[in-house]
Each structure stands twice: as C-alpha cells, then as structure tokens.
C-alpha cells in the first residue's frame, strides 16, 4: 500500500506523484491540509509538519527521497 500525504499547492508533491505514475505505482493521494484527522495521522506517523510524506507498506519516507523510495518499491532505473 502506497499513500502520499500532500497539499494542493506543493510542487514537490506533484513531482513525486508524477514519478510514481511514470513507474506504474498505484498510490492513494491524500490532502493533509483538508482533513484534521489525516493531518494528525501524518504528524503521528512521520513526526513531520511538512509535505510530501510517503508511506510505503508501513514505512515512512519524508520528502522525495528517491533512493529510499526506489529501494522500498523496487524501482530500477536505467543508467
């Protein structure tokens, strides 16, 4: 299960979502600014008040950390 916590005005979140789409990764996109419960969940899980936060099978990655995301999702990029 892949979940992306974002805000509608965050360009870096858009870049991350585009990257996941390019690699055919299905994900749930949640707006952490719209719903207090979603926001609380993001802060509790990540300790962060900053987006993007991505949850990959229970593991939390803060920001667009491509190396970590590639590792967790087994994305292999061409050199």
């Amino acid at each position, binding site marked *: 299960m892949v979940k992306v916590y974002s805000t509608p005005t965050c*360009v*870096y979140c*858009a870049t991350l979502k585009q990257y996941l789409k390019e690699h055919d990764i299905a994900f749930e996109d949640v707006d952490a600014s719209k719903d207090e419960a979603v926001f609380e969940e993001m802060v509790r899980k990540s300790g962060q*008040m900053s987006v993007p936060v991505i949850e990959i099978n229970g593991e939390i990655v803060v920001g667009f950390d*491509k190396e970590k995301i590639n590792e967790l999702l087994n994305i292999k990029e061409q050199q």
Partner: protein
Amino acid sequence: MYDLIIIGGGPAGMTAGIYACRQGLKTLIITKGFGGQMAQKSVEIENYPGFEKISGFDLISRFENHLRRHEVDIEIDSVIELKKNNNGFLVLTKSNKEFKSKTAVIASGGDPKSTGASGEKEFVGRGVSYCPVCDGPLFSNKDVAVVGGGDAGFESALFLSNYVRKIYILEYDSKIKASPANQALVKNIKNTEIITNASLKEIKGKVLVESIVYNDLKHNKEKSLDVSGVFIEIGYEPATSFILDPSLADFNKKKEIKVNLDNMRTKTPGLYAIGDVVSGKCKQIVVAAADGARAALDISHYLKNE
C-alpha cells in the same frame, strides 16, 4: 554522451532544455524537481508576459509540459559533483549515477538562507519551513511567524493568511523592506503583527515547534512568542555546493557565478551558467528564461565549431 547536461529545472533550466532540443541537441536535465524558486512563489505571478496573473504552480506546469513535448531526458535527482575532464564534463548524482556530456549548464538557482538561530536546523519539517506555499496549508488555525520583512516575507504572509490564525512578521531592521504595494496588502489582513528590530534567537519545542525567542534590538530585551510554524524568508544564496573545483568558474562576492552575459559562458570552455545562480542583478523569471535561450543557442554554435 550528451551534448549538454542542464543542472536545475527552474525557468532557466527548462527554457535551456526547450531551446537545446529544438536545436537538435541530445539533452539531459538533472533536477530535484521542476520550478525552482517559482515553486515557492507565495502569490500569483503578474509579470510573465502573456499571463496577466498565474500561480507559480500553473506556470511551472506549462513550462514542464512544454519541455516534455521534446526529446529530452529527465533525471529527478540531486547533483553532488560537476567535474571537467578531457572530453567534456562528468556529473555525479546523489543516487550514485554518473553522466557525461560535451557541455554543461549550471541552472541550479538558489537555496534559502538560514537565520543561524538555535533550533532552526533541528526543527526543519517539524514547524520550520522554507516553503510556505508547500507547507502553509498544514498550519490552519495555528499561529505562525514569518522571519523576514522583505517582499518574500510579506507575500508569504499574504498566502498564509488564507489558512493560519495569527501571523507575526519579524524584521531584523528598524524598517520594513517590502514594497509599499505589499505593505498595503498585508495591512488589510486581520491578525498580522509586524515586529521590527527583531533578531531571531531560538526556535523551541519538544517534538514540534512550540515557540520562538527573539531579541528586541531596540529595547535590548529578550521576548518570546508561542507559534507552531516558523517560515524563513530572508533570501537565497547561490546553490553551487556541487562545484567542488572552484577553478571551474569565477565568482563574485555573493558567490554567484560570473558569466559573459552575451552568451552565458563561464571561464571554462563548454561550461555555462544561467538564471539566479548567475551574477546578474535582475532575478526575474523572464530573465532566467532568456538566459536559458541564450545559453542553448550559443551551445549549438559552440558544438558546431568544436
């Protein structure tokens, strides 16, 4: 082997990419993300010709879509080193990738300056933010501080006022530097307090930010404010940490790269610099885009004569 590698995906880098592809050059753009400082623009852009008013987000999407229509390779990554070798350039990235090119364009823009206050680094992402437009919506109904009383600070306050309960704007100087127009706009926002002569000293909290301490320079007194968010808006410094060999280019006092403004060449043949990382005084989207065009057209010429 690429004809050119562009480091940075702001307006300068994206325009260079569009022009280079149209010149038939084999092009790679390496960037952390698209937009550069446009991605952090808190208010609508009103001075990019053809668009009376457009958000940074929308203008970036247009640039990016335009770029992606061309045969360009895109690598979302951070550059950690740019090297010159006998055949051209070698670019190393954080993901341990290595790319080679005949020419290179530095379009890395700027990194937000930090205040140096105690706690600032520790609380990044936990209340401290350099991107109000990204994180601002998360602070709904909370009290926040904006550090910096220039246009960027005031524009951030305007954006944040859509979400937060109270905004304190802290300015180090005795006078506000923001334009009269921005000052007038901020004056109309409820619950905004401007504090001049304020030197941020410490950002405090347990897990997340809870308060800040600043020196009131006029009264020589330490004061504190309870806030959940601290948005730092005190300007940018050139993002050139990947240039480990300083002999590749000349720099001015601000550490911006010196170029020939006719063609954006640095002193190293085949190495170009464009946009906000360059020593030009005019830090504007349209100027950055023009820099990209100049560099790409000159590179096309340079490669033909090689």
